[in-house]
């Protein structure tokens, strides 16, 4: 009974079509997550520095870094000398 219940997603697949937008969104997130994790793997970086390294816009970089911070993958690592930008590093 329990095994059957744990596969209700398969039943839903029969009637619910996952949109291409959702599939593309998942791919994009995984790619960006990997890039961010690699970028701050060895050094602490600010949002503009990560954005430059990833050739991504700063608002988009902030969105993904803050999402990873929320999910416990990234953590804050102090602020720069001008008290303007926070550094971010991987949570280990």
């Amino acid at each position, binding site marked *: 009974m329990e095994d059957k219940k744990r596969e209700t997603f398969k039943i839903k697949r029969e009637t619910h079509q996952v949109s291409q937008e959702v599939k593309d969104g998942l791919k994009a997130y995984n790619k960006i997550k990997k890039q961010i994790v690699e970028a701050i793997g060895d050094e602490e970086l600010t949002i503009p520095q990560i954005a430059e390294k990833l050739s991504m816009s700063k608002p988009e970089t902030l969105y993904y870094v803050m*999402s990873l911070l929320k999910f416990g993958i990234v953590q804050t690592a102090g602020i720069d000398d001008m008290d303007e930008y926070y550094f971010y590093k991987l949570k280990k």
Partner: protein
Amino acid sequence: MHTAKEKLFYDAVVVGGGIAGVEAAINIGNNNLKVLLIEKDLTLGGKMILLSKVFPTLDCGACITTPKLSEVARHPNVTIFTYSEVKNINKQDKNYFKINVTKKARYVEESNCTGCQLCEDACPVVVPDQYQYGMVGRKAAYIPFNIASPRIASIDIDSCTLCGACEKACPTSCIDFTQKDEDYEVVAKTVVMATGFELFNPNKIPRLSFESKNVITSMEMERLLAPTRPYNHVIRPSDGKAPDRLAYVLCTGSRDLTVGNPMCSQICCMYSIKQAQLLMGALPMADVTIYYIDIRSFGKGFEEFYEQAKGMGVNFVKGKIGKITENEEGNLILRYEDINTGKLKEVEHDLVVLSVGALAHQEPACLFPEGEWKKDIYNFAYQKDLFYTPSLSSIEGVFLAGTTSGPMDIPDAILSAGAASMEAIRYLKQASLEL
């Protein structure tokens, strides 16, 4: 997909699970009357639960809201439907209302979910979090926020890839993708409308450049200041910089005939002053300027609160903003008329907060048969007798709680809910209704 319609009977139905609706449901329930509280969102608490602190006491908003939510959740006379939509409300005869309600599928068995968030951890999909105004992501399997009530997960089926990770991770096997929307026909003797208000959309004033990432609404700033905030600190959405020159633009969408709202929203001055004080704490080196037409500090302790903000160093400028433009660094140039001197001035800020006004919710009018739900000239609910019985609507047996009838602050919304529930109880007792 819907399941067959089920019929339910209650003494009262409260539409809207914000602070006013919750207060009204508790009051009616305390009088041994059976109440159904219907909320369209995944959680009770409305806008209040999203606030950082409240004015003028600077008490924690969540700390005031959550005990009330806890009280209503375990009240023996109150049944709660969250994530449920009222389709229509029809008065059948003098004695009762028929209310059609759809309880949307969460794809989670509410009674079994422990709120452990393991489904959230397992979910691979990230989409903008609507409770954080899109400033950060959330999973497709998610709990709205830590203090959500009920603290139950939900699957955003439109964003779900049906990978099954959440279902495999759930220790209580409560994820159920076979769930369907459930339709109910509720029969009740009275209805309390506590549908709240809507916030003004600043895109309606293009000259304020709301499309700029560093121009945000006051509700977004509430989230930035709240303990359950989207970022690690108060930083700019454009680049993560800690701002040091912040501006508030009061009366955005209020007292403005050009956008069709001549009314003062009553709360914007004080919530802006509150946020300015909180910012002085969060960003001690920052300059905070409030551009205003008039400061309306009319309530108990409000004038003292305003003076306190001035004493803390908040800069108040009597000026009307003409235009906001963004420069290459993402900073904002505010062009304004200094009302005291009559001169045009330009000032640079690195974050601008638009203090958006409160507008009437469009929902109530759509729920009743055409013409029954009357509105006032500002589109809020028509009050039959503003001075003697402000809770009475245009429909006998339907009562008004909170900002359904006009903008008001939290204490007034709770008072209004008290009055509405008292009127509903009196109506029930006087009529001695029999279903």
